[in-house]
């Protein structure tokens, strides 16, 4: 079903190639590394740039029906995915790990989203700037839901009341969510004039920073592959078919909501992506009983490469076929 032209078109872009280079470095036992906090610089930058750009575009387009549809469908998806993921996993896993993985897959992966945007840009397929807003909105609900599912299971509710405030803080004021949301807002407030002044940094510089960040992601993902052996084959498989399932849900919702091809791909990718930044940080505090050596490598070392290398062109092939 996947169009080989699209696949190649995706695989042979600099960002994807740099990701592969990073993985290759680990397999060749090269000592190449990007020392901390440089990866943090690029991750902060990407959130800032994508948020700001999305904001200026949202300001430009205004709150049209299309925008509302995109945001609504995104939010809906962010509430459905954690639920079914949780119940699927509960058959094999304890509550803590199920809930943490549910939150991971229910939330989004900003870099996967950026890769999809870049891919659309390359193919010249238009998409709405408001999808960034959808992304920003979709980051937190899965965190809340995951923790609610877990606490509901534990019934006893050993939580002192302050806990919920803490949880919402974790979910909404988490560093990466905060920067993304804040940049989006600032983009909306400053609009055209802001865009002009930041264009060189936010647009021109973007692809290069993405390459660098993906190089680092490749290094980290490859290093984590070993940890995954511990996770067992059920979870290894899950890390591949969960994005497929979630993308399918995203595509179905996009079709129902009547989104365009570009927006549909972005929605599929928001569904398919699994968070390895915001959610792990939040889960660590809120469900310390879950094992981060399971949910982080699943998202980072399998789902992320799968989406970036194969998933994005695959979802687009399907969408093009369904939409035509």
């Amino acid at each position, binding site marked *: 079903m996947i169009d080989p032209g699209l696949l190649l078109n995706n695989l042979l872009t600099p960002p994807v190639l740099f990701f592969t280079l990073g993985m290759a470095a680990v397999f060749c036992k090269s000592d190449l590394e990007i020392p*901390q906090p440089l990866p943090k610089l690029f*991750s902060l930058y990407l959130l800032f740039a994508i948020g700001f750009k999305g904001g200026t575009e949202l300001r430009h387009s205004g709150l049209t029906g299309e925008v509302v549809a995109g945001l609504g469908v995104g939010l809906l998806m962010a509430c459905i995915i954690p639920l079914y993921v949780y119940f699927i996993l509960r058959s094999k896993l304890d509550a803590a790990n199920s809930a943490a993985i549910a939150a991971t897959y229910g939330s989004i992966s900003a870099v996967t989203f950026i890769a999809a945007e870049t891919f659309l840009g390359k193919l010249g397929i238009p998409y709405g700037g408001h999808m960034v807003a959808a992304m920003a909105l979709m980051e937190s609900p899965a965190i809340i839901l995951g923790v609610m599912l877990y606490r509901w299971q534990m019934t006893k509710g050993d939580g002192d009341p302050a806990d919920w405030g803490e949880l919402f803080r974790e979910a909404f004021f988490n560093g990466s969510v905060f920067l993304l949301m804040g940049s989006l807002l600032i983009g909306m407030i400053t609009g055209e004039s802001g865009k002009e002044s930041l264009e060189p940094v936010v647009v021109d510089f973007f692809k290069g920073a993405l390459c660098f960040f993906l190089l680092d992601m490749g290094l*980290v993902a490859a290093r984590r592959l070993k940890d995954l052996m511990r996770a067992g084959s059920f979870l290894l498989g899950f890390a591949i078919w969960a994005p497929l399932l979630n993308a399918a849900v995203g595509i179905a919702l996009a079709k129902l909501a009547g989104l365009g091809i570009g927006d549909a791909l972005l929605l599929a990718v928001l569904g398919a992506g699994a968070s390895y930044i915001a959610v*792990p940080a939040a889960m*660590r505090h809120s469900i310390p009983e879950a*094992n981060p*050596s399971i949910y982080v490598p699943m998202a980072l070392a399998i789902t992320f490469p799968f989406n970036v290398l194969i998933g994005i062109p695959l979802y687009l092939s399907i969408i093009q076929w369904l939409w035509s």
Partner: protein
Amino acid sequence: MRPIKKVEIICASVEVRKILTALEKLEVSGYTLIRDAEGMGDRGRRLADEVTDVFKNSYILVCCSPEMAEKISQKVQPSLKKFGGVCLVSDAQWIRVGEDHPERKEP
């Protein structure tokens, strides 16, 4: 020169804030924090190579009386239990200056 206890805590970076707050509540006279440490233990490797601090440790040093050392090690137990880490207590001599330093003079 005054004999004191040296309490060394290696804890998950995500817990640093809570632990420092706990130390301040216990009214320790001071502490020192080295934020970036990697490690290996029962919970596997923590390589500190991600943008999130989930797989990172921090190192905290507190010099205090034996009683305070006791209190601290009680206090941090739950965090170390949940998030992993080590708490060591050893002996040292604190060669500390008098308390008459200038910055104390309120303006």
